[in-house]
């Protein structure tokens, strides 16, 4: 232990004065009594006539000496090395992602990190500034830079872990803004970032060149976790009246696990299955059910693991309905047959259509451009809408170099042996993604314009061998499924934690009430003339209900985040390709202790007061 103000020990010279006071005789009141026999137990020693009495072992004197020693000690401002290194500003970043709710350390990783952070705050010197950021679904500044430790502790207490994936990069960028200081042209590091995290599923690639003054305080261990990482609901191809529910369960632990997976419809268990999953592998659980009506389908994992939030996923599923398709073509049997073969499709074929298209779910334009653009989703084949793309080039025999397997439209579609005679090529526009690529340009584009889904095919299938390939009807079936407004609506109702709820109301409303999974509700003011409702507080997984006038919509918010399911805490954080940061236990800094000394002195003073009055009052 060291002392910041050792000169205060001069006050210790007053200690002999206390002893001297006890050597002096006490002034007492004289009182005549019948006899002193009964007072034998209370008698003081017979006093000598000198001004000093002989030294006696007096409890009060020792109490007062101890009190004085503590007071002198407090004045000398003792300190010892605490758990913080000296710097001007420290930014405490607390990871509030879902993996921090793991209970492999009790009570949870988040609470453990909070306890570490509290100890770290206690170790700060009075002159040091610190601030607190919470990296949850969004980065929140819980406390701006301050020297007030009580305020920092209060801010820390107000933090809570969310159910969202890790978004540390955003928080660290915010923290970095506080830890750099510009001096002319030079940028200097003027602070430290203390990250309290488990390091699970952290992607800090974009911070590779930032040279962050990052100190990583690791919490948590390996953990044992199983989680649902994806969920899909679609029509059963063998029986259109049934629905197929597919859930992917990932085993993030180091041993083979047997998990029970349940399917619930509107909170009623429909079916349960056992799934065996190898370590660091995933397994699918497939359910087929006859859906009695629109409702919430939930897949629940019954596994005693360390993280609960990824053990359940929900989605709102509508009853399968027929898809009404308007095909505007000058004649294309392949296309017409392909569309008719799509599940639940009702195709209306016309060369021209001047009436309203509201009755149709989607419109297929085959080398025709209608006078009035349809108000539905559109599959445009060989059409050149002028305002969709910046530039369109036409190329003879363009090779299909690559295509996007992951997109729902090209699922199970193989374009390997498809040859084209001629095609329009475009640069991928901002509203869509390229599904099939020829050299630098896109052949097929899918996206969303004015809240309607659009697939644009740059070539005429009749000018290729694609209609003769099996991939053609599969593509058409996928396209119909994807363009179907019911599919889009289902997708809109399925969100990840942290993604905002966007609800469109046909009737204008002034406000809507959002009911959260925990039963609390929030009122949201409608946007865009009362047709749009936005709600951003989706930091908890579960079912959210939006009531806008008479319209009720159910949104399912899930974690569905495979990296977050891998909860193993990391010793090193990788920043980009070359940089990294290792976890530290603590670094040391002086920790002022005078307050504890003063508190002890006060307690002793109160004890002495009590002790004295016990004897004399």
């Amino acid at each position, binding site marked *: 232990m060291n002392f910041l103000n050792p000169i205060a020990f001069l006050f210790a010279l007053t200690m002999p004065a206390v002893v001297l006071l006890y050597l002096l005789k006490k002034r007492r*009141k004289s009182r005549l009594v019948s006899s*002193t026999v*009964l007072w034998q137990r209370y008698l003081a020693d017979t006093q000598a006539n000198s001004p000093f009495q002989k030294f006696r072992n007096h409890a009060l004197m020792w109490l007062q000496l101890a009190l004085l020693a503590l007071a002198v000690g407090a004045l000398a401002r003792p300190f010892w090395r605490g758990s913080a290194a000296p710097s001007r500003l420290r930014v405490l970043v607390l990871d509030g992602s879902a993996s921090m709710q793991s209970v492999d350390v009790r009570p949870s990783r988040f609470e453990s990190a909070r306890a570490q952070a509290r100890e770290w705050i206690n170790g700060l010197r009075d002159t040091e500034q610190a601030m607190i950021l919470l990296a949850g679904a969004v980065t929140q500044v819980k406390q701006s830079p301050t020297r007030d430790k009580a305020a920092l502790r209060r801010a820390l207490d107000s933090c809570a872990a969310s159910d969202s994936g890790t978004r540390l990069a955003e928080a660290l960028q915010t923290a970095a803004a506080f830890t750099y200081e510009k001096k002319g042209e030079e940028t200097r590091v003027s602070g430290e970032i203390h990250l309290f995290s488990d390091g699970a599923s952290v992607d800090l690639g974009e911070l590779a060149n930032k040279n962050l003054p990052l100190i990583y305080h690791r919490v948590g261990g390996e953990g044992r976790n199983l989680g649902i990482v994806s969920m899909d609901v679609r029509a059963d191809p063998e029986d259109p009246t049934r629905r197929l529910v597919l859930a992917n369960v990932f085993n993030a632990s180091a041993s083979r696990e047997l998990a029970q997976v349940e399917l619930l419809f509107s909170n009623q268990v429909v079916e349960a299955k056992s799934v065996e999953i190898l370590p660091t592998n995933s397994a699918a659980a497939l359910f087929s059910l006859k859906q009695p009506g629109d409702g919430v389908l939930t897949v629940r994992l019954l596994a005693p693991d360390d993280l609960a939030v990824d053990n359940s996923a929900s989605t709102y599923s509508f009853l399968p309905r027929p898809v009404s398709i308007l095909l505007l073509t000058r004649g294309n049997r392949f296309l017409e047959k392909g569309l008719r073969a799509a599940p639940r499709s009702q195709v209306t074929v016309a060369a021209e259509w001047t009436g309203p298209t509201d009755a149709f779910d989607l419109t297929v334009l085959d080398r025709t451009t209608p006078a009035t653009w349809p108000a539905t989703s559109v599959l445009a084949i060989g059409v050149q809408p002028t305002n969709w793309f910046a530039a369109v080039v036409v190329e003879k025999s363009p090779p299909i170099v690559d295509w996007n397997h992951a997109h729902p439209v090209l699922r199970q579609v193989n374009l390997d042996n498809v040859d084209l005679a001629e095609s329009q090529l475009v640069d991928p526009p901002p509203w869509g993604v390229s599904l099939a690529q020829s050299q630098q340009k896109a052949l097929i584009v899918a996206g969303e314009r004015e809240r309607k889904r659009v697939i644009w095919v740059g070539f005429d299938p009749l000018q290729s061998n694609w209609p003769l390939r099996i991939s053609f009807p599969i593509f058409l079936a996928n396209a119909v499924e994807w363009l179907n407004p019911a599919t889009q609506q289902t997708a809109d109702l399925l969100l990840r934690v942290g993604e905002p709820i966007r609800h469109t109301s046909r009737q204008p409303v002034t406000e809507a009430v959002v009911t959260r999974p925990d039963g609390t509700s929030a009122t949201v003011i409608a946007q865009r003339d009362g047709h749009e409702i936005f709600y951003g507080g989706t930091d908890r997984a579960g079912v959210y209900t939006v009531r806008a006038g008479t319209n009720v919509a159910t949104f399912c918010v899930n974690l569905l985040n495979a990296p977050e399911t891998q909860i193993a805490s990391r010793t090193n954080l990788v920043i980009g390709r070359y940089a990294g940061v290792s976890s530290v236990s603590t670094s040391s800094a002086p920790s002022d202790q005078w307050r504890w000394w003063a508190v002890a002195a006060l307690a002793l003073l109160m004890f002495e007061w009590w002790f004295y009055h016990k004897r004399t009052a």
Partner: protein
Amino acid sequence: MPEPLLEPKLLRKLEQFQLRTGRRARSSARGERRSKAHGQSVEFADYRNYVAGDDLRYLDWNLYGRLDRFFLKLYEEERELSVTLFLDASESMTFGEPSKFSFAQKIAGAIGYVSLCGFDRVTLTALPDTAVTPALRSGLRSVRGRKSSLGFLQALSQLAAGGTMTFNAALRRAALETRQPGVAVVLSDFLDPAGYETGLHALAGRGFRIHALQVLSPEELAPAHAGDLRLVDSETGAEQEVTFGRYRLKAYQRSTQNYIQRLREFCRARGISFLSVSSGAPMEALLLREFRETGLWG
């Protein structure tokens, strides 16, 4: 006119009692108490053979008829009982409200009155007796008979406490001076720094049937003063320093009770009856109930 020591009403109630001795009277004078000596009374004691010169009135003619021998009937002789009251009149007895001395005076008066009513010979010895004038002494020594009770009570009421006294020495001297030991009643606070053991021991050794009555003031049982005090002993003048407070009251009372208990056990071991009373206690209840329960009289 000075207030009488005891109310006439109380005195009338006391007349029903007789001092219990626990042993036979040894006095040579005739009295009302049974003794070991044989003489003239109505209580048959024994027979003995007739010898020439015996009073023929005491021959048992019935026995002569049956056995044809002369037997003389013997009767118990009734002697007087000597009651000695030792009243502590030292300075320490002047303390308390009411003072311990005036309280002890009343008790002594009551015991003396009961004894005189029972035709016992009563002697009251004040300790110290320096303040006792010869006139008072004659009214307090060897008093007998109910008619003397008024003078006895008057002389007793004129006694005053003061001065110092060594309890043990005073009792030892009194034991030596007594010619006919009988019942001794010691009225004191038993707070002599030198102790009380040898004094009581001397009385017991002399053959007294002893009743020890300790009188303490309420102030001594629960002191009201607190703080850093210098206590001055009223008799010895010795100064003692003490720090006392209400938090220590229980401990003080515990130590006081221990002191009384030691005294009680000392008395019990020597066949001395003991009673500790507070000078603030109601006199009538003490005399009519507690004294009876402790066996002082009945």
